[in-house]
């Protein structure tokens, strides 16, 4: 009875969070959080299931291979969500001085308090892991294509394997964060850990949120990009360990299915997929053992660290007095005489710096926005840093995403700053402002924005300057830094243009509801990132065409690669030409035109838009009767009409070979830049 009461007490304490209103009804909060987890994971599972359920028939080899991507996404998501939960509950994961004050005076043995505390932590982890993984696990029943003859036992095996593996991955993520926290505390001691705890939490938050946002776009091609290549990266990526575990547990269910006749245009892909998938079996077993060992090691280390830190109830750790030194006095003098000369401006300036650096809620808001900004930068850049083809001194040769990244990061950081400003520093202390407020918001606000600019914008631009100086050269980096300064000033003014509340003081959500904005924003962010990733291509697309065509978004280059692949196919026997001479002649002509086409593409955006629809059709409606070669000639007699195959290929490629809608704008911008380059080249002439 006593244990149950204590566990319930500790469980409710998890809801006393900085991001949750203290006036909120705990049951409402619990429902909202649970609903959010179920909705997001259900949405993800639905998106993953869609191509299997509603798409064309996918043969077993392709399903097995594309499932690797899905398993990677699910295990990564479970791991990241659980790690984020642990980071969010950072200080509540262990006993603290409040527990000492409340429970230390009661006649309860220390062992009982410690036991119940960690039982509550375990219940939290299990609860969240189950809520997050429940819907995707049940969706596993329907993610197997309906036309594959998987038995009921097979379906149950797949579902159980999914549940076990995603829960194990989640446990690994949670225990890793808990282990890191408790391990650090055990190593450096409670007093020192308190000093580094906030920074560690913020760093983890940035890393995990960034990883979460990048995940939807990074999970494709797991077999080719990670597993098949081997090396340290493939072995060191924890989600892959659990992918290996899943394949070891249930990979054979689909892989051992009998191969029946797939559509002609899948034949080669199916054979390649089967070969690749089966060649990775030793790797799956190896990774599975790594997963089990890693989970065991993390569990043991975390338990040991927790036990060590719980030898006695924690006592309050008083932060060391931070008396101003010479530098502090000089800083205050500079602020008082140069930066913020009026009292109200100084009040806003210093209070903002103090709140941003010392309050958890504000740090969480800033860390999240920084993570979003970094993710946007990485997604936009898509690995486009300066390469051999770029001239460090010439701004026109710099990829647009590299230049746009700074603006994205600044916008994200400043949005986070605005969000942080809206959160009361300490609600109960807001009477300070009620009584002392002089009614003049403008100078105070000016101090607040100035502090945000100095504390957030300058370090961000400074970090980017170092990076830009490395890849672009000092002159260009300095120019870019200047542009960033101007842009940030503009953004700051825009964001706070209609802001008429006292920063860090008001308003507070007056109702008993959960603060809606954070949860809603997070949900929207996940939805949007998934939607964008979805636009990029379904697993079916990735296998049937993506691997053939590459990941390139440039229509002309995609076009070229299609031709290259077809030519390669002609040469290496993947595709047999019935009237090879005419086909090769035609393709050879096209290949010869590629260079010209690539050079001209930037100047003809309109034409290209039109070609987006027409080119694949034109290309494949030529009288080149083709038929696919077969993986197993016995199963696939050559009985079909070649022209029908050709038509199918044309239709399939037409569906897939086109730039994403969001890239049309980017392409037009790039075209303008190329246009400028051409004009520049022509000027001397």
């Amino acid at each position: 009875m006593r244990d149950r009461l204590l566990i319930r007490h500790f469980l409710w304490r998890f809801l006393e969070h900085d991001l949750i209103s203290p006036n909120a009804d705990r049951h409402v909060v619990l429902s909202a959080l649970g609903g959010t987890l179920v909705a997001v994971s259900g949405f993800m599972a639905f998106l993953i299931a869609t191509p299997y359920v509603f798409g064309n028939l996918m043969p077993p080899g392709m399903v097995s291979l594309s499932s690797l991507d899905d398993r990677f996404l699910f295990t990564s998501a479970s791991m990241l969500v659980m790690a984020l939960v642990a980071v969010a509950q950072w200080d509540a994961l262990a006993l603290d001085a409040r527990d000492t004050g409340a429970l230390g005076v009661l006649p309860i043995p220390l062992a009982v308090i410690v036991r119940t505390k960690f039982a509550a932590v375990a219940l939290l982890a299990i609860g969240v892991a189950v809520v997050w993984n429940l819907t995707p696990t049940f969706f596993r029943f329907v993610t197997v294509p309906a036309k594959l003859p998987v038995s009921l036992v097979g379906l149950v095996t797949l579902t159980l394997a999914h549940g076990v593996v995603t829960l194990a991955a989640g446990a690994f993520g949670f225990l890793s964060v808990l282990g890191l926290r408790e391990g650090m505390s055990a190593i450096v001691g409670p007093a020192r850990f308190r000093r580094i705890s906030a920074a560690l939490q913020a760093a983890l938050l940035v890393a995990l949120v960034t990883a979460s946002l990048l995940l939807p776009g990074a999970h494709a091609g797991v077999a080719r990009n990670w597993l098949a290549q081997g090396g340290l990266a493939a072995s060191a990526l924890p989600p892959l360990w659990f992918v290996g575990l899943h394949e070891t547990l249930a990979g054979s269910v689909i892989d051992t299915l009998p191969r029946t006749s797939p559509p002609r245009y899948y034949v080669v892909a199916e054979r390649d997929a089967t070969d690749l998938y089966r060649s990775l079996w030793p790797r799956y077993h190896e990774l599975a053992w790594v997963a089990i060992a890693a989970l065991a090691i993390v569990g043991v280390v975390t338990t040991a660290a927790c036990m060590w830190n719980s030898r006695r109830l924690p006592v309050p750790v008083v932060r060391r007095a931070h008396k101003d030194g010479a530098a502090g006095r000089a800083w205050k003098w500079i602020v008082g005489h140069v930066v913020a000369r009026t009292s109200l401006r100084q009040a806003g300036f210093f209070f903002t710096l103090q709140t941003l650096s010392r309050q958890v809620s504000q740090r969480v808001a800033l860390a999240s926005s920084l993570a979003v900004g970094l993710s946007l930068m990485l997604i936009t850049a898509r690995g486009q840093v300066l390469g051999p083809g770029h001239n460090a001194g010439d701004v026109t040769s710099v990829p647009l995403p590299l230049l746009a990244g700074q603006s994205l990061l600044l916008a994200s950081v400043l949005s986070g700053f605005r969000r942080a400003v809206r959160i009361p520093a300490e609600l109960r202390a807001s009477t300070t402002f009620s009584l002392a407020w002089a009614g003049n918001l403008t100078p105070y606000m000016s101090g607040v924005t100035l502090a945000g600019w100095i504390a957030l914008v300058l370090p961000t631009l400074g970090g980017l300057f170092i990076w830009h100086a490395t890849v672009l050269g000092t002159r260009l980096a300095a120019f870019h830094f200047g542009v960033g300064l101007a842009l940030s000033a503009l953004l700051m003014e825009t964001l706070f243009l209609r802001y008429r509340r006292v920063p860090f003081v008001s308003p507070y959500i007056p109702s008993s509801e959960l603060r809606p904005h954070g949860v809603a924003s997070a949900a929207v962010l996940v939805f949007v990132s998934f939607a964008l990733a979805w636009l990029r291509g379904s697993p079916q697309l990735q296998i049937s065409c993506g691997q053939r065509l590459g990941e390139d978004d440039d229509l002309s280059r995609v076009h070229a690669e299609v031709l290259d692949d077809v030519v390669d196919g002609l040469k290496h026997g993947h595709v047999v030409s019935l009237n090879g001479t005419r086909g090769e002649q035609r393709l050879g002509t096209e290949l010869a035109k590629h260079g010209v086409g690539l050079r001209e593409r930037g100047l003809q955006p309109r034409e290209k838009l039109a070609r987006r629809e027409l080119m694949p059709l034109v290309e494949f409606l030529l009288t080149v009767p083709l038929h696919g070669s077969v993986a197993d000639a016995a199963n696939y007699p050559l009985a079909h009409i070649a022209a029908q195959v050709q038509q199918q290929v044309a239709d399939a490629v037409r569906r897939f070979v086109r730039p994403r809608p969001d890239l049309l704008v980017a392409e037009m911008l790039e075209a303008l830049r190329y246009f400028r380059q051409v004009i520049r080249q022509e000027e001397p002439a």
Partner: protein
Amino acid sequence: MGLEARHLVKRFFGTAVVSDVSFEVRAGEVVGYLGPNGSGKSTTAKMLTGLLETSAGAVLFDGQDIALDPVAFHRRLGYVPEEPNLYTFQSAIEYLELVGRLRELPPALLTRKIGALLELFGLSPAANQDIGSYSKGMKQKVMIIAALLHDPDVLVLDEPDSGLDVAATLVLRQLLIALARRGKAVLYSSHILELVEKACDRVVVIHRGNVVADDTVEALQRLMSRGSLEEVFSQLVLRADPERTAADIADVVADHA
């Protein structure tokens, strides 16, 4: 010049916490505000400072309704609330600097005042520590300093002696008298009747949201034929015999069956 509560009423969800409270605190006067727990003292104090809207009635300062220009009133008000709610992540110096800057005090004067007051209240050694690590008495001292920084004309002190040590309590008593002599209007709510008796010129006693007495200590003693303010207070607001109640409590505590 003074602060006047005129027929103040405050209802929460239809229940009147303060029914009809009227009294005046004149300049140069320390008025004691007494009442048992839950009688409406703190609610009245919050209405007097403009932090809580009245359900009926008005608060006048220098004859003007404070609701007409609350900012102007707050410029001349010093308030020590019942609970010392401070920004716990700040040090005492940082908190007082924030208050002073919000009140637009000149920087040099602010620095001088903060240093001197922290020294006089015995907080200098802990001035750079986080307020979160302070005891209740230390927090209370910070609140008192914050209320005095701008040399207010009217002071509302809602149990400022809560958590203060004996020495600080004695200093506070003398401080109230000194401030009144300098023309400040002081409303002092407390449960320490001895302190109120010695520091206050006049006493207002509130019970169940109504003023049950408003006079000088001497007049009340004469009127009630009692020798001390404690006896007067007991007769006015206590309905049960304290000795009897204490014995009943002890009986309940000793019950093991």
